[in-house]
């Protein structure tokens, strides 16, 4: 026996429903699904009884804030990775708005290395589009693409690349290495000082509004730019009914645009802001129920391609204050599965195969992750999430792995629970609890 501990163990997952399909067994060995079928029996394999559970390809988040380097008081790669594993994610894309900003090969390699060392999930750094997120000059996108981190997703997330010429150049430039620009669509002048969705509730609360048109006008411009230069555009956290319409129109014209929606925008509305509790402060803001319904419909019909959590942990003092002073953002890694199950599956809009498409296959494809998002069949990398869809649990932020306590779902009872997460064949989560990290070979 010369194999490392990780490789020594074979796992036999017995009787899980494969997505929306029939129950089957999965044999996992050396990081790969080596066999599927029924009634498999393998000497020496650790058997995991998965009857009643659903197996889906490991979830992939295209939009995570891990805060390291710079804001280790809010989250670290280690804590964020643990939260990801517990949430069923086998890969997360770490957004570039760290300090220093991930705008050089050095910083993205640092984040990548921290992720490998943590070993809970595949941490894929997102590179900044512009130096320091300042929106003035392109960062060295090619250097980040060529680095060990092999960056393919570039974003100034948190800040919109609002200069149309810069956006055009970025879209053109990343074609050289099959990259994609993930745009935070927010017209800055229309959202100066904005605190919440502009509408009936902001009128009563007396808060500066963040109008839907500020998102929609940028998306409209960007899809036309993407068409003009024939490049890939990804729209982050779509939040309005009008945005869904524009993206649907663009896809009908064959424009290479993909879009994401957060779990919270699939459920919560600006009515919650009446409490003035900053846990509901987020960017883009919570919208109206009409928007929520349009986002769900768009996700179900494929107009919106993926779920992106926009997991944004903050230290408590950033939320224990006046609304206007509070930081924007919500945690999301450990509630994403349950919120999507509640809003999309239990509402009858999609099934578990669609769940696999929007949480794994499509985000892996957009991020160009070769060994993620593969179907659960022999020969695929063993990135697997086992879900108990019948489970019910109450959200308690204090018990989460993320350092952020800012979950807008605190106190709510949610359906569905991650029972196990296999990351490259290694169980990072077993029986709903953290197991051990995967040790990286050769590093």
């Amino acid at each position, binding site marked *: 026996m010369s194999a490392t501990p990780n490789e020594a163990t074979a796992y036999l997952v017995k009787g899980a429903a494969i997505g929306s399909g029939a129950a089957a067994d999965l044999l996992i060995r050396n990081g790969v699904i080596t066999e599927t079928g029924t009634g498999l029996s393998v000497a020496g394999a650790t058997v995991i009884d998965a009857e009643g559970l659903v197996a889906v390809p490991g979830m992939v988040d295209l939009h995570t804030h891990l805060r390291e380097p710079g804001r280790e008081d809010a989250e670290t790669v280690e804590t964020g990775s643990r939260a990801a594993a517990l949430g069923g994610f086998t890969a997360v894309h770490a957004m570039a708005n760290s300090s220093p900003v991930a705008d050089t090969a050095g910083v993205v390699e640092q984040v990548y290395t921290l992720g490998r060392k943590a070993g809970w999930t595949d941490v894929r750094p997102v590179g900044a589009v512009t130096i320091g997120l300042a929106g003035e000059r392109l960062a060295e996108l090619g250097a980040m693409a060529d680095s060990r981190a092999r960056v393919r997703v570039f974003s100034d997330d948190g800040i919109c690349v609002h200069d149309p010429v810069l956006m055009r150049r970025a879209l053109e430039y990343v074609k050289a290495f099959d990259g994609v620009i993930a745009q935070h669509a927010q017209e800055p002048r229309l959202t100066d000082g904005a605190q919440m969705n502009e509408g*009936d509730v902001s*009128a009563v609360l*007396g*808060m500066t509004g963040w*109008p839907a048109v500020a998102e929609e006008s940028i998306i409209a411009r960007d899809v036309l730019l993407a068409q003009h230069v024939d490049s890939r555009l990804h729209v982050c956290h779509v939040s309005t009914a009008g945005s869904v319409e524009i993206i649907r129109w663009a896809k009908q014209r064959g424009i290479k645009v993909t879009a994401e929606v957060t779990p919270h925008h699939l459920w919560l509305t600006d009515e919650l802001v009446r409490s*003035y509790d900053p846990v509901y402060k987020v960017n883009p803001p919570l919208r109206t129920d009409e928007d929520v319904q349009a986002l769900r419909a768009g996700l179900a019909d494929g107009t919106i391609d993926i779920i992106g959590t926009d997991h944004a942990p903050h230290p408590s003092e950033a939320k224990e*204050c*006046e*609304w206007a002073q509070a930081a924007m953002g919500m945690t999301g890694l450990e509630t994403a599965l349950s919120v999507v199950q509640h809003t999309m599956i239990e509402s009858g809009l999609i099934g578990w195969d669609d769940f696999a498409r929007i949480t794994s296959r499509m985000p892996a494809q957009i991020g160009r992750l070769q060994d993620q998002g593969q179907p659960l069949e022999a020969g695929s990398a063993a990135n697997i999430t086992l879900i108990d869809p019948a489970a019910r649990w109450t959200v308690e932020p204090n018990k989460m792995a993320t350092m952020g306590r800012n979950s807008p779902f605190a106190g709510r009872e949610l359906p569905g629970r991650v029972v196990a997460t296999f990351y490259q064949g290694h169980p990072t989560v077993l029986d709903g609890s953290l197991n051990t990290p995967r040790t990286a070979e050769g590093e």
Partner: protein
Amino acid sequence: MRHLLSTEDLGKDDAVRILDTAEEMAAVSDREVKKLPVLRGRTVVNLFFEDSTRTRISFEAAAKRLSADVINFAAKGSSVSKGESLKDTAQTLEAMGADAVVIRHWASGAPARLAASGWIDAAVVNAGDGTHEHPTQALLDAFTMRRNWARINGTASPGTDLSGMKVAIVGDVLHSRVARSNLWLLRTLGADVTMVAPPTLLPVGVAKWPCTVSYDLDETLAAGPDAVMMLRLQGERMNAAFFPSTREYSRRWGFDDRRLQALDSHGLKETIIMHPGPMNRGLEISAAAADSPRSTVLQQVRNGVSVRMAALYLLLSGETHAAPATIQEAQR
């Protein structure tokens, strides 16, 4: 009533009770000795995150006439501006034994946050928060209108509401906490409200408000309002392209001498002109209008003390606090 945070969630019974109590307080203010011992030993903190000398001294006078101890905490230029959080400030006041915190804040919702946070046990009175609400201003405005309305109808003020009254609120509605608080309270008391403003100074969503919206002040005056409330125009609004110039604003939406005469020619003898102060004379209101017999500006200031006395008295005599002596007992 545990706190006074907004008029939107103030029921009619509570509103009328505050106004009726304010009538009793006004009687005290007319006496030679303008002081009641009902809040002796109680501490009222004026916590002001935004300058407002008028509102602060009005609350201070109200608390002192009820014999409360008053602490003025101007959070601007104090430890707060050096990074101390609202939470720490609140807990500090709590530790000092504040029974009521009167808070003025530039951020909408700060008083509601303070009341709901669990950081503090004291009664919270919203003395104006951002562009959200200013409930005691609306209450003193309603008190002023009610006295006038009762006089016209030949009844005594206590116990009555504003049913049948027509009120026009004119100016920068978008940024006005006074307009919002007045709208909800006036509706609760049965008045009809018309908001008059340039379209740029009305919030998106105003269509859902229980009021009529007009862009035309002359048309609104011709319809015969019983009260016209002029809102203060902040000079800095001009820089954000809400309107082309102050002169154009004044011509279209200011209460000028021509409109003062129009009230007479429309035969509106009893129509009053209100302003929450401080006034920009010559901008939203002409000097002649401000000084005319129709103007209730000084009555509003006087009534402000009575209404704030009533609010503090009712809040601090609530069940969560030991009941002070009744006003009648105190007057004996």
